[in-house]
């Protein structure tokens, strides 16, 4: 018997009771829809997080000071004062370290910044020219902090667009104007291009000053809050981490890596951590959605069993006229698969439009992953086979005499 014949008779059988067919498929529609929506929303949020982490700079390693122990009480990571500008200079100068392109020593702390009319509390970052390379800073106007500014402890500042708007109002050019940080006047020499980001990690709400000015003039410290390093390329990340790690250990007269007074965090670590968190959430939610798929499958099985009983006479007749058992099984399986496949296709449309709507509303990148579509089709066909098998077998096992007698 040709497949077209089987298909058309299956479609015919399903279209006899359209309402029931639709309700039977509804479970699959909702299940597949939920799985697709959640997978693609999960992927969208992962993409968004990844791109904002990558905006921090590529091939980035960050050295932060270790925690400080005082009278047996261990402080938080970064609380000690073990990293210095000299460390950064030594890393830059060391002939042993071959995989690092840029070294950016940084000191950051929040402070009150004021102009004639307004004031705001913002992040002050003491930087060297390397900061621009390491963190992909581009300027919308003016220039960045130069080596000369750092050497001469100049009172100049490069300001982020959010901070600029807060202090000078939208659309006003702040270049050449003065801001007062901790009551010391700094002249603004550049404004950065917006990098996005929000909340606690707003990379646009910053004021950058020469590292030396931050340490000596503003905060009176001689240590760093971090050193950012850019590896020459992606494959050098691990080598760079090792080279710099051992170099700093010996510079700090330590032999055991477990006693290190600093920690090196790579961008890959952060990405990995964030990805695993969003991945876990996606998996969890998809798992819940998969339960509704299971329930949908049981619904299909239920309807198919009812159909088999209702069509006992038809099955008996078909067997009397020469249908083999495998043909009867195929016929019922095809009906079940059409049911689940159709449900899967509807569910895909539902899930995709749902995730499109949500990504528009909360401003995430919209993606439709091929894998989720393939999974949806595979799963819905598999559900058809798994849950259609039992009713189909039951149909095939009917004796033609019993089936013909059935009223």
């Amino acid at each position, binding site marked *: *018997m*040709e497949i077209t*014949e089987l298909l058309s008779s299956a479609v*015919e059988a399903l279209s*006899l009771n359209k309402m029931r067919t639709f309700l039977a498929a509804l479970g699959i529609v909702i299940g597949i829809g939920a799985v697709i929506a959640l997978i693609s929303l999960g992927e969208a949020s992962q993409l968004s997080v990844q791109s904002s982490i990558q905006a921090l700079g590529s091939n980035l390693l960050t050295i932060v000071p270790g925690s400080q122990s005082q009278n047996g009480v261990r402080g938080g990571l970064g609380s000690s004062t073990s990293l210095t500008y000299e460390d950064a200079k030594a890393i830059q100068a060391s002939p042993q370290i071959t995989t690092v392109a840029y070294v950016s020593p940084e000191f950051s702390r929040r402070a009150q910044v004021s102009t004639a009319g307004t004031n705001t509390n913002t992040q002050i970052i003491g930087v060297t020219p390397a900061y621009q390379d390491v963190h992909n800073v581009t300027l919308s106007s003016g220039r960045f902090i130069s080596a000369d500014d750092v050497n001469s402890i100049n009172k100049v500042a490069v300001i982020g667009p959010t901070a600029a708007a807060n202090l000078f109002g939208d659309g006003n050019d702040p270049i050449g104007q003065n801001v007062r940080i901790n009551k010391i006047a700094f002249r603004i020499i550049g404004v950065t291009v917006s990098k996005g980001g929000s909340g606690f990690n707003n990379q646009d709400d910053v004021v950058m000053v020469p590292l030396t000015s931050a340490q000596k003039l503003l905060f009176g410290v001689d240590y760093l809050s971090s050193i950012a390093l850019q590896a020459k390329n992606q494959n050098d990340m691990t080598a760079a981490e090792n080279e710099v790690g051992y170099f700093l250990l010996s510079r700090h007269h330590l032999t055991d890596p477990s006693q290190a007074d600093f920690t090196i965090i790579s961008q890959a670590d952060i990405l990995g951590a964030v990805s695993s968190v969003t991945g876990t959430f996606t998996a969890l939610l998809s798992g819940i959605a998969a339960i509704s798929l299971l329930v949908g499958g049981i619904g299909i099985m239920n309807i198919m069993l009812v159909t088999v009983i209702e069509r006992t*006479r*038809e099955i*008996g*007749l*078909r*067997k*009397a*006229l*020469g*249908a*083999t*058992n*495998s*043909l009867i099984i195929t016929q019922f399986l095809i009906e079940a698969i059409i049911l689940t496949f159709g449900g899967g296709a509807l569910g895909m449309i539902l899930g995709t439009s749902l995730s499109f709507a949500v990504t528009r509303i909360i401003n995430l990148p919209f993606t439709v992953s091929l894998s989720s579509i393939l999974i949806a089709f595979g799963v819905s066909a598999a559900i058809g086979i798994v849950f259609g098998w039992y009713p189909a077998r039951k149909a095939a096992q009917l004796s*033609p*005499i019993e089936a*013909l007698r059935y009223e």
Partner: protein
Amino acid sequence: MTAIIEASHLSKIYESGAVKTQALADVSFSIKKGEFVAIMGPSGSGKSTLMHIIGALDKPTSGSYSVDGVTVGHLSEDNLAQLRNKKIGFVFQAFNLLPRTSALKNVMLPMTYAGIPKEERVARATKFLQMVGLGDRLDHTASQLSGGQMQRVAIARALVMDPAIILADEPTGNISTVQAEEIMKIFEELHKKGHTIIMITHEPDIAAYAERIITLKDGRIISDKPDGHKLWK
């Protein structure tokens, strides 16, 4: 003439739990090609059981049965299905058409299982529907037809595979007497054309159309008269 059906010492015992029911006991007969045979008997006489065995829907408990040279005893379920498809044309009391399917498609169904190409299926089905006088009702669904018309579709369906025998189980049981007469005329014509017809019935005036009447009682043949026509007409 050669024997198209050969049954020897057929018996059938149904077991349900400890109760054994003997539906057929040592039934032997043969039917020649082109014969029109009626099998009669009161209910419980075993005629339905015999019809199931003749139709290869069931196997005897003991004894041997062959149709058109094929011995049924050792065939698998799928082989039985193929045998029914090729050698036996069923006509049922309750018509057993697919209700929401057109007359044409109903008649095409056995050919679909035989893997006959579509053009030939349509051509043959049309030919036989015209033969039973339903050439203008090809696209009517079974539920749009009268009882007599449905039985004529069923006869067309029984004929399309050019079977060795036509096996009719109470073919007039569910239709009016006028329509029953029309149906029996079709059977008579088929008989004249040389078809082998076996008809199960409990109505003497229907059995009278046959040329031979086998009467069953309590699972045994009590009479096998070759001249039904003379007996009843």
